[in-house]
């Protein structure tokens, strides 16, 4: 693992350092102005905040300038992401567009899609959701049943998507569907289509989280027309397309930092002179975070196509998918360690509507704790992937 990475030489370049300060100042000012209320668990959907972030040039920032991007490095994007997470900033509105659909369009989209969607995403005006899971397709994503049938000038899509975060606020979503029947190789015959969420035949219903919050949805597609120009990449290549950028998606700071603000509040609560037990737990949490961040940074840096690539697309030649799976597996467990340390050291009851940030963060993180090890590849699936790489084919 990580054989191609020289960890001892890995450090943020000066450009990323100055950006780090810039983002911190921006967030400090936002928090001081009470422009947003930080929440943990599910990040909030706040179009106003998203537009401010966009105005700073921090959405789609690695994309080519001709598509509204800033042609900055992956490490610079890394820095922005981790600062947003450290401040519990409400990034849901631009999250999927910036992180998944934008990069996919950049790599596989046609020119019209790129010109239509990318600048709008980068301006913080166009929000995407992801239509992957279905009632009978969770970890086994290749088994999706949503199907698209060929009609003149496009496709008619019918099926059901679930766990579609923020579909009720987004403009469009990527739908993974079957455009040809499963004829043996189940990874073939899948395609990605862009479906506008206000299109006729689309019905969105909330799936409430266990604490009553609404961010998940189920989305029903009933004979929804999708014109040919909204097919992403090539028909039948959907599987390759969704798996090609997994290394970055699985290894980003969001895989180990979603409970970090609770760590900060824990330290505030413990004060300047904690006892040995508390100090030991704090030291271990810090050491684990520092180590995870080094791995996550290494992946971002290694996949960075560099300023001269022109297309802003990850280096395809470098395969860090297994390393990324390791980061997600360890990172999501690390997030729980913060919750447990906070719980055990503070002896307070988690209180959803508490005035105190610590009690509220504790409540928000505890109810969301099961989610991180499920979404984006369950722990068990990740470990299977890692083991396959370790062991090779066994007979």
């Amino acid at each position: 693992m990580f054989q191609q990475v020289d960890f001892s030489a890995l450090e943020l370049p000066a450009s990323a350092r100055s950006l780090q300060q810039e983002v911190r100042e921006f967030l400090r000012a936002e928090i001081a102005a009470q422009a947003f209320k930080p929440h943990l668990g599910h990040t909030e959907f706040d179009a106003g905040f998203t537009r401010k972030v966009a105005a700073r040039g921090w959405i789609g920032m690695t994309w080519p300038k001709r598509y509204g991007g800033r042609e900055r490095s992956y490490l610079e994007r890394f820095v922005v992401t981790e600062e947003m997470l450290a401040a519990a900033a409400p990034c849901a509105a631009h999250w999927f567009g910036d992180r998944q659909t934008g990069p996919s369009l950049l790599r596989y989209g046609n020119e019209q899609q790129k010109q239509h969607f990318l600048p709008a995403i980068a301006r913080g005006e166009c929000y995407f959701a992801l239509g992957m899971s279905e009632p009978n397709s969770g970890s086994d994503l290749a088994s999706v049943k949503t199907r698209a049938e060929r009609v003149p000038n496009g496709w008619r899509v019918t099926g059901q998507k679930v766990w579609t975060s923020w579909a009720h606020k987004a403009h469009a979503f990527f739908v993974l569907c079957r455009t040809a029947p499963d004829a043996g190789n189940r990874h073939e015959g899948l395609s990605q289509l862009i479906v506008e969420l206000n299109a006729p035949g689309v019905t969105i219903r909330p799936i409430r989280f266990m604490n009553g919050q609404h961010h998940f949805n189920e989305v029903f597609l009933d004979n929804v027309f999708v014109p040919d120009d909204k097919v992403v990449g090539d028909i039948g290549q959907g599987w390759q397309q969704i798996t090609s950028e997994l290394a970055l998606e699985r290894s980003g700071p969001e895989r180990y930092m979603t409970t970090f603000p609770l760590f900060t509040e824990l330290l505030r609560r413990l004060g300047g002179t904690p006892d040995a037990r508390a100090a030991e737990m704090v030291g271990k949490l810090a050491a684990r975070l520092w180590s995870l961040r080094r791995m996550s940074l290494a992946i971002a840096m290694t996949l960075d196509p560099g300023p001269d690539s022109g297309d802003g697309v990850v280096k395809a030649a470098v395969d860090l998918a297994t390393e990324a799976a390791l980061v997600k597996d360890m990172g999501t467990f690390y997030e729980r360690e913060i919750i447990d340390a906070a719980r055990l050291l503070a002896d307070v009851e988690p209180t959803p509507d508490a005035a105190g940030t610590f009690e509220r963060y504790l409540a928000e993180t505890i109810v969301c704790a099961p989610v991180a090890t499920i979404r984006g590849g369950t722990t068990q699936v990740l470990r299977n992937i890692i083991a396959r790489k370790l062991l090779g084919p066994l007979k």
Partner: protein
Amino acid sequence: MNDVSDIRAMLIESATRLFADHVDAKLLAAAKRDGWSPGLWNIAEEAQLPLISIAEEAGGAGGSLSDLAAVLRIAGRYAAPIPLAETAIAGWMLARSGLQIAGGPLAFGPVHGEIITARKHGAQWRLSGSMRRVPWARIAQRLVVLAAGPGGDIVACVDPMQCKITPGRNLADEPRDDVVLDNVVVSASLAAPAASGVNHAALRLRGALARALSMAGALERALELAVRYATERSQFGRKIGQFQAIQQELARFAGEVAAAVAAALSAAGALERGEDATLAVASAKIRTAQAAQEGALIAHQVHGAIGVTDEYALHHSTLRLWAWREEFGNEAAWAIELGRALAAGGADRLWPVLTRD
């Protein structure tokens, strides 16, 4: 790739070949009995591995701390029974303080913060005190001692023949010897005021970093063995690696190993860049010790009974992991220190400190 990483890649390749070619079951068995392998030492010294990161003008082999880190990781992977880290740290103490480095294996102390007193006696120094569990003391050509002189700390190059050395060993039968200095005479040319940065805390820090790097390598080896065993051993009519229960454990193990490697090498880079490396080294020692805790036992579990035998190679890695995780501060000691420092800095400094790099 730039020049620095090219050179390091070559160093990694040649060091890997050197240890792979020479460290075998017979050599390790002999070292278990004798405390070390003089033959391997000669080969390593010829390849200029022991004094990497020390300037050539000072008698070192040149190269950077990251180069040394790469070598220590590989030596750990092969369980090389020679005092590479100790020689490098002792050499650093000497070079920093303007003293010449002679050839041969070196040891340094104290490693538990004991006070050795140094008194001036004409042109000579006289050193007294005792040091517990000094790594490799009995086989070292010279003991490099940090002692308290009347005008501040000094670094002294001591002839071990003049000390009373009581042999001891760690779990892996590496020498960890008690050393008593009773008015040991050191000529003025072999002692000097300790340079700034050469102090007890720095010895502990560098020792901890060295052990973290060695543990990273030992973990890599234990994982290699466990993976190989899982692909070879059959039970219930299948390779045991085909069982998901085994696969999940190996995957967890691989994560621990990757984290250990990342942390240890990163800490070496931080120290090399001259940053305040306490966070980095503490994190590296904590993370590698945790990985050792998880990884060594998974390695044994996957191996079943054969793994605990003297005949099978796994114990060369796991016994060292269990010994090294305690040396120069275990994960609890470093975590308490790190936790107190972070708390003293205050909650709003936590994130900036963690991301200072």
